[in-house]
């Protein structure tokens, strides 16, 4: 939709340009998807020209401005990447514009790039107003429904996915009220070559929860881990009742454990 209060676009934008009333602009699909009467300037990051995917020795760096379509195209050989792309409520046409970073920054429980980044031990690279970088684990980037660790004037520059987890075997389960509807539960299990396993719970909960096991866990150990999420930690909205989300989390966790145990 038209953002009528916007009077200027800074393109490309640079660190330090942010002031109150500004919004960082990635693809724009989230920003233009809701009324934003407090936004007066758009700081365009997509025009910065960051290479969408950079392969390094220790993994891949996904620019915040990498579109979902580019991600699916470049890294879709990893099943979990493609599964998370398909978890979007939004269509493939939105993939052509929406960015990985934008999905993280919107911080919706159902954001599948949050699920992916958290499940693969990703690290978020943030750039502050002075140009300085800080790094936070992707699992801790989102703090609640719509909230992140980003400070005023700070933007998400990239997500680094280490090569080990990216190449690891994963198991994926998703629940929704509708076949291709918004995720109500999105669980990812990861079996590492060293015998460890992690279980990432997203969509069902207000923020990601990652449980790590040094060796393949028993059913009871998984149950016990999930018990640490209080019922108040489950999302309560039109996309599913909290008790159902909690049940599906346990249900799918059992199946993921079983799948990865084989």
């Amino acid at each position, binding site marked *: 939709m038209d953002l*009528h209060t916007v009077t200027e676009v800074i393109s490309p934008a640079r660190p330090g340009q942010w002031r109150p009333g500004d919004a960082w602009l990635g693809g724009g699909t989230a920003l233009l998807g809701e009324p934003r009467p407090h936004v007066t300037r758009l700081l*365009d990051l997509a025009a910065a020209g960051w290479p969408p995917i950079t392969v390094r020795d220790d993994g891949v760096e996904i620019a915040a401005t990498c579109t979902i379509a580019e991600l699916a195209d470049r890294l879709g050989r990893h099943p979990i990447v493609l599964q998370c792309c398909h978890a979007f409520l939004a*269509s493939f046409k*939105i993939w052509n514009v929406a960015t990985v970073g934008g999905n993280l920054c919107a911080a919706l429980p159902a954001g599948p790039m949050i699920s992916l980044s958290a499940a693969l031990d990703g690290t978020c690279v943030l750039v502050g107003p002075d140009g300085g970088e800080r790094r936070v684990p992707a699992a801790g980037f989102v703090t609640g429904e719509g909230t992140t660790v980003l400070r005023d004037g700070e933007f998400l520059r990239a997500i680094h996915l280490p090569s080990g987890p990216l190449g690891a075997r994963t198991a994926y389960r998703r629940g929704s009220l509708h076949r291709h509807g918004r995720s109500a539960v999105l669980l990812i299990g990861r079996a590492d070559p060293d015998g460890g396993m992690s279980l990432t719970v997203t969509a069902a909960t207000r923020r990601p929860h990652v449980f790590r096991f040094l060796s393949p866990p028993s059913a009871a150990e998984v149950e016990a881990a999930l018990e640490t999420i209080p019922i108040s930690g489950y999302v309560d909205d039109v996309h599913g*009742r909290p008790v159902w989300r909690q049940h599906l989390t346990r249900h799918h966790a059992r199946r993921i454990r079983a799948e990865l145990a084989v």
Partner: protein
Amino acid sequence: MTIEINGTPHDRTPLPGQCLRTYLREEGCFGVKKGCDAGDCGACTVHVDGTPVHSCVYPAFRAQGRSVTTIEGLAGPSGLHPVQQSFLDAQGFQCGFCTAGMIMTTAALTDDQRADLPRSLKGNLCRCTGYRAITDAVNGGSPAVCPAEGAAVGSSLGAPAGPQVVTGTARYTFDLDVPGLLHLKVLRSPHAHARILSVDTSAALAVPGVEAVLTHKDAPDRLFSTAQHENEAEDPYDTRVLDEVVRFIGQRVAAVVATSEAAAEEGVRRLRVEYEVLPAVIDPALAMLPGAPLVHGDKGIAEGIVRANANVVGELHAGIGDVEAGFAAADAVYEATFRTPRVQHAALETHGAVGWLDDDDRLVIRSSTQTPFLTRRAVSRLFGLSRDRVRVVAGRVGGGFGGKQEMLVEDLVAMAVLRTGRPVKWEYTRSEQFTAATTRHPFVITVKAGARVDGLITALQLTVLVNTGAYGNHGASVMHHGCHETVAVYRCANIRTDAHTVYTNTVPAGAFRGYGLGQVTFAVEQVLDELARMIGMDPVTFREINVVRPGDDLTAPGAHVPDLGIASYGLDQCLDRIRAASSTTDTAPDGWLVGEGMAIAMIAAGPPGGHFADATVTLLPDGRYELAVGTAEFGNGSTTVHVQIVADELRTTPDRVLVRQSDTDVVGHDTGAFASTGVVVAGEAVLRACRALRARILAAAERGPSEIRCLTADSVAGISLATIAPLSGSGHFDGTPRSVAFNAQWFRVAVDPDTGELRILRSVHSADAGTVMNPLQLRGQIEGGVAQAIGATLAEHVDVDEAGQVTTTTFRQYHLPTVADVPETEVHFARTTDAIGPLGAKSMSESPYNPVSPALGNALRDALGFRLTDLPYTADRIWQAIQDHRP
């Protein structure tokens, strides 16, 4: 930097916060539609450098230096793009508002994506078709039908507007460029009930571009109802254009008119309003209790409100026979209470209108409406203008479903035009559709019924509570209608109905496909299903024993217009189809619970108390015919049928019939395109006009009216038609007497007890529409109705919180059925010919909706072993119910 649109460079720089959709429309690409404005519906799909995007969430500035293709640029020099052609061939549209986006998306699909349409088309919402026609189009439709002279009726002729729809050139309400246009935005109430003490407009008026601010002090001191009926007394006069008291969160408080939407919005933000907050009632069950806050305590019987001092708009307390005796005679008695939620029509074109003064200073309003003539009457009365000083027109309307049988915008647009003397546009946002349009009436229905072991229903008792929200538009009529055909379809000697429609301080409800029948049917058909179980009888046989048959009176408690009768009967054939459906088999995943269920519905072909239509057919000098008819076209397909009637009655071909419609200037009167009357009332008027003209043509050749064989597409008795043109014939129909149409629906479902997921394994619908005027189109109407009802049954609910605030305000929060959510429905037509309807046809636009929810409820009951009484049946609720019923 320029933006290339369809091969032509455009130099104008977009505004900084503008989305590409708005820019493209400003540059004249009206085929790019504004549906949701939030990236959800896909109606705005265009290609940027060959890549499909949703242009409503694509920043316009980013298109600079790029090449954009819209629906207008898709066709090549040699004609339609193959996807446009296949949408035309398969008639993959109804209202057509989503079609440009569907076509642009389909044109960009890879083979892999075509193989998985549920996923590939999840970003394209269609509210009309139920998607079967669309997936047929994507997969390549069969060529369009070109009926020969006199063979149009009964053929699957395509919609006359099809070529415009698939090329993006069909003109909807806002698809026109009006120089000097002003934009209107409203401030909406944050309180469920409040008195406006003051409105400080000074800061708003100081915003550059703001031309006027309108408050209740500017509004005419006249009451009206937003509901539009031929008989105005059907609805209480409880509404003002702008009122001093606001009665729901979202009600208009003041309007700002400005040279741009941006300035109007800024003006709205700068209005300062002082409110005296008043006590509010949100829960309809509390509204009638003594001491409840009164929503319209200042009004009463004079305004058409039955008991304003108890928040009762209308009520029905009536009976036939003796229900207590009936229950005493029963071998089984079952009683349950059912609840249906608010549902949004979700027409992809929002409410809105553009108004201006024409060269004669006449007020012209172009509106997204189902009722141009009634809206003209209402506007005339409100502003003290004679009817010839007001013209109301509708372009092609982007979906209605009853939501546009309502004057929600035209009054305020008229006021703004009259105040400023300039053209004014007001277009609802998608969120305003949810918070400030109307919804389906939420019902609470208790049904108690008894039957003997031989299957005879001995008594039926209904207790119904209807929540009309803050205004009474349609509230009483929906209640009366809902309590009529639902029980009149059964021969039962003892029926008792106690029903109330009550005010609450919530978003008003309004007309919605089925007009109350769907809600009450949901309850009645489930209670009867349970009774059949109790006496050990299959549900089809149970219906066969009890349903009305030819020659029966249609009776229900209360006073009813006596013009309704069974002028054709195909319910027996419908039930045969349902019985046959049950003999099929389907496989379900291991561990899933499988169940079957059915339900029936009857609907009157037209409303009681008058529904009028005028039509004129004129023979043109070139041998073509021009049909003038009042009804609006919003995908209902009436226009197609009207053309078919003209073609056959005048022995010509459909391509030689021009249509002028939905304009108060073209005919004397038309009540409107609602109550399933497009074929049976307007169509009858068209038929009469044709026959009047035909007699004049034959007379001109000195032939009698029965010598039809003398007439061909070019000549009459050897005399060229051109030599006797122009000639006109007029027809009128007053909508009485009325027949009834029947529908039956059957489902087989499977439920995953671990997750609550429900899958429809098979869906069968049988319909008695009398003569099938256009099989493809009728099938489409039925599929669309079934799909819309599946949405209301399995997904949709407009939520209102304890304060009265609507909390579901976008399509991301309000899940409309997508391709993935709608199963294919087998559609069967009964073979009947109606004695009343034109050429034997009956209504079939609302009614396919009505048996769907109870059939699903009954199937779910069969699968689970217990009954769910509250809609919708979402997976979380089903799973919760399974937990609650565990021993």
